[in-house]
Structure formats: structure tokens, C-alpha cells
């Protein structure tokens, strides 16, 4: 089951929602989440949590005067992707 999850993501031609993938694999979305977490721990998948998209500077963007809670920053949904791309820095 675990390998199928990885395989299905590798084969995907376009972005999928977690529910789409669960439906394709005929597994429960909650369980799929757990399986993806396993692959994240194994280092095969990277997960990005939405928190990074918030305005994190102290410079203040006029509208974003403080470091926390820029009213325009949205929380990005969690995304999982296969590892193997160039590193971030």
C-alpha cells in the first residue's frame, strides 16, 4: 500500500488534491495522510505547511506594520511533493 502511494504520485500528470489521490488509491483520506507522513519521515516526500506564507518581516509593508498577522497573508494549504528537486538554497 505504501509503495502504491509513492507510485501514484510519481505517475501523476497534474496536481492532485488529497481527496483525489485517496479516491484513486481507494483508501481512506485520513489513512492516506498517515501514509504520506510516513514517507515524509522517510525523506521521500516533502511537506510544506501553510505557515510560511505569512508576512514575516519586521520591515512593515505599509499595510503590514507588525511582524505577525499581516491581514493580507493567507494560510497556504498543506502540500506534499516528491523529493528530488534542487534544494531550497
Amino acid at each position: 500500500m505504501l509503495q502504491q502511494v509513492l507510485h501514484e504520485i510519481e505517475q501523476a500528470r497534474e496536481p492532485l488534491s488529497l481527496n483525489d489521490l485517496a479516491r484513486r488509491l481507494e483508501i481512506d483520506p485520513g489513512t492516506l495522510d498517515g501514509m504520506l507522513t510516513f514517507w515524509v519521515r522517510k525523506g521521500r516526500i516533502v511537506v510544506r505547511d501553510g505557515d510560511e506564507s505569512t508576512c514575516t518581516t519586521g520591515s512593515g509593508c505599509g499595510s503590514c506594520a507588525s511582524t505577525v498577522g499581516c491581514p493580507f497573508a493567507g494560510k497556504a494549504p498543506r502540500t506534499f511533493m516528491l523529493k528530488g528537486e534542487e534544494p531550497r538554497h
Partner: protein
Amino acid sequence: MSISYFPNQRADLPLRYESPVEEAISRLSEALATIPTLAHYSPRWLAIQLLEDDDGLAQQVQAAPGGEAVLHVLAEQRDHLRTHYNDAVDITLTDQRYRFVHQITQRVLTRPDAPDATLSDTIDRIVTHKYLGIPIFLALMWIVFKITADVSAPMLDWVDGVISGPLTNWVVALLSVAGLGGTWVESLAVDGVIAGVGGVLVFVPVLLALYFALALLEDSGYMARAAFVMDRLMRALGLHGKSFLPMIVGFGCNVPAIYATRTLESERDRILTGLLVPFMSCSARLPVYILLAAIFFPAYAGVAVFSMYLLGIIVAILLGVVFKHTLFRSKEQMPFILELPPYRLPTLRGIWTQMWERTASFVRKAWTIILATSLVVWLLIALPVGGQGRFADTELDQSAFATVSGVVAPIFAPLGFGSWESSGALVTGFVAKEVVISTMGQIYGLQEAEEAAAPTTFLEDVSGIATSFVSAVGDTLKSIPLIVGINLFEEEEEAEPTALMGAIEAGFEESSGGHGVLAALAFMVFVLLYTPCMVTAAATRQEFGNVWMWVSIIGQFALAWVVALLVFQGGLLLGLG
């Protein structure tokens, strides 16, 4: 509620793995059982953990007397399992655990026949549909701008009326009581602060309407779907998916959108997205569109505004494709899995909080950056260059501002807005897009025929404000059915254009040789595409470095110039406007 309990069936090994694994576990447990210092652990559990590569426990075993021998058995068994399953041992064990759980679930859980058919799934199937997804996104956006333009228009008129009418009169009256009437102080208050900051604050109703619509889309969970649908399009075009989320943030404000590119993995994709984000029309640009659309396309304001946003998206996508095949060539993008948040009914409280916070930040900006810029502009307007003008009493054309702006004006001449007035507004607009409005208010406000308004008393003013507010609210309510194209009411007679609007119209007509509509459209396009604001440029530098900031600024300017040129000259060629 009951207890299900079969005490007699309790076996020693409740969860059994496949026999090769069980065999390895029992070999290892036997070996572990010989070590007294590990006796406080269940040998079976310890064996499983060791097979699953638990470093901490392996170290404990190694440290124990006789541990080396156990680790030898472990290595042997792990090798054996790895060969047998052709996979890492921890993957094998985890997988078997999932299978075990899956089997149990299938046995004990009965779900309705179509477990997928929840409302959320049904909605998702439509709004993230392969072909319907994008039209739905565009349709919703169109509704957002229709709401914004139509519903806010009456309120806009009201606030404008209050600020330019009674409020200005009161300030003038107060100043003359203080003996400052007709001095530079009055000019500073009226032509600097009220025309500049007031001119921007006039748009608070517009932004309230925009933020309301955006909050509705965000809180319901739709925005994440929109990003998903657009990502799929971007990926189909060979671009990195996942970049649309920063772009959607960009509709609110470009600055957090630049920072939001951090969600992308590769440096390349982050820079590329960072270069595209500024083409997402932020809420500060909306007042410019609204003002010009109200002057030049009063009947199609919603369409005009929507077209600007759409153009921004199209430019971003096209440019992205061009970049992808030139500057930012990179290997095939990895697909990704996105967790879409569940839909929920937006709460009044949530929407209110968002509207309030965003509008508050807009107002705060008006009193800080925009006030500061307005004062500088006022000073430059007040300063005479040559001529016989005195400070704060100089012919506009001979002011320092007109002189400086006049130098850059020829650049914009082919675009139809080569007057010093609009050039000046674009130059100061580099600070922030609201400044385009405040500067126009300051310049054209002064050009307004100084028509002597009939003197009114304070009480007349107050009652005037109140009655016009009531009628504005009425007009707002009446405009709501119009959004969906139903006109329940007789066509309102066109609102009387204000003197300011008249002055702007005349200015564009003059600079374009009688093609004011085309020039205004080109001007809107230019405002859409050139550098959104200083802070966005600063954010770009912070995230991507000095070089990319200049690439971004110069590139945006060049692109804005070319596209505006195409709009104006192309329109002339086609005989439009």
C-alpha cells in the same frame, strides 16, 4: 452504548505480521530475552523496533552485556527480510501494519454506498473540474468586481461629497477663525492633506466591498480551490504549480505575496513567481481603476475593472511561459498533492474581522505613507520655479512639480498620457498606487474652477450629510440586484460628475489629442503593470537580492510601457475611442 468484550479470546500475539516477519521477530525476541538488563522491555516490541531501525534502542542494546550478539542477529534478520521483500524493512513492517488495519476496517466498518458523495465532494467535483474550473473562477471574480464597482459607487459618491464639500468648508472656516485663511497653512490643509489623503480615503467603501467579497471566497474555502485550478493550468503550460497561491495572496497585497513564494521549493521557481506576483492587481490599484472607469466607462465600470485583473493574470501566465523557455529553464516539474481545506459556511464574525483588519491597514497607510507623499507633492506644487509666483501661491504650470514631471512626460506621450499631470501621478505612484489617486486629486483639484459654493451653515451641512447618506445606502441596496443583471429599478440618471472628475477627463482628452477613453485605458493598464509599490520592491530585494529587484522594476516598467502603447496606438489604428 455498550461494551464489547471477549476476554477469553485474548491471544499472546494480537497483531501478526506475515510469517517471514514473524519469524524474524521471534528469532530476535529469543536473543533479546537472554539479556537481563533489557528485561523491562517487552522482547517482541523491542524486536519490532530494532527491525524498524530505531537508533536509540539499538544503542541501548549495544551497550547491554551480550548486546553485540543480538545486533548480529538483527543484521542477519534485516538482511533476510530486505532480500525477501525487496524493500527497506521498516517500510515492509509499516505496510503490513496498514494492511492489517485496512482488513479490520473493511470487516467492521459499513459506510453508505457512495461515501464520496458528501456535499463538499460534490462541490469540489464541479469547481475543480478540468474544464469548468477556470470559467467558474473567472465568473466568481467577475461577480466580485461587479459587486465592488456597483455596490460601492453610491457610497463612494457620498464619502466624496462629504470630504470635498462640508469637511473642506469646515477646515477652511476653522482656519480663517484662527486667522490663517488664505495662507499657506490653508493650502497645506486643503490641497495637501484633504486632497491627498482625503482623496484616497474616499475609496474606503470600495475596499470594504472588495474585502467583503474576498473574505467570503477565502472563508468558505473556495480560494484554495481557485489556486488549485490555476495551478493545474500553470502546470499544463509547463510552469511550476503551487505558484498560484502566492498570486492569490497578491490580489490583496503584493508584499505578503512576495514572501509567500517561500512555499516553493526551488530558488528558480521562487524568483520566477516573485517576478510574476506584481502583475496580480492588488487592492491598492483598485481605486485607480474605479476612478478612471467611473469617468470614462461609467456604464461598464465592473467590466473595466475585471478586465484589468484578468489582464494581470494573463500577462503573468504568458510571461511565465516565456521565462520558462528562456531564463528559467529547468527540468520537469514534480507533481504535488494538496490538502484542500473542508468547505464551511463563512461566519459573519470571520468576514467582519477580515474586512475590518484589511480596511484598517488601508486607512493606516493613508495616514502614513500617503500623507507623507502628499505633503512632498504639495511642497513641490507650492514651490515656484521661475515665473513670478510666491510660495504656496504659484501657477501650477510653473511649480517645481510640473517642471520635474514635465521632464518625464515625453516618455508617456506615445501612450496618450504625456501630460505633466499624469506623468507626475505615475512618478509619485511608485511609492504606492493610492498615491496616483492622491496626486491626481491634488493636481486636478487645484485646476478645478474655483466655483464659489453657496455658503451653507453647519447645520445644513450636517443634515445634508445625513440625507445623502440615507440615499446612498438606498442606492447601494438597489444596485445589488443589478449584479446578477436584473435591473429592478428605472435607470438612474447618470450621477453628476464631480469637478475633479471633469478635470481629469479634460486632462486625458487634451494629452491624447481627443482620445481620452483610449488614453485612460492605457493609463489603467500602465498602472496595473508597472511597479506596484516601493515596499514590494523592497520585499523583492530582501527575498531575491538587489539584481532581481532591478530586473523586476525595469522589466515591469518596460512591459507596462509596451502594453500601454499597444492599447493606445492599437486602439487608434482600429479607430476605437
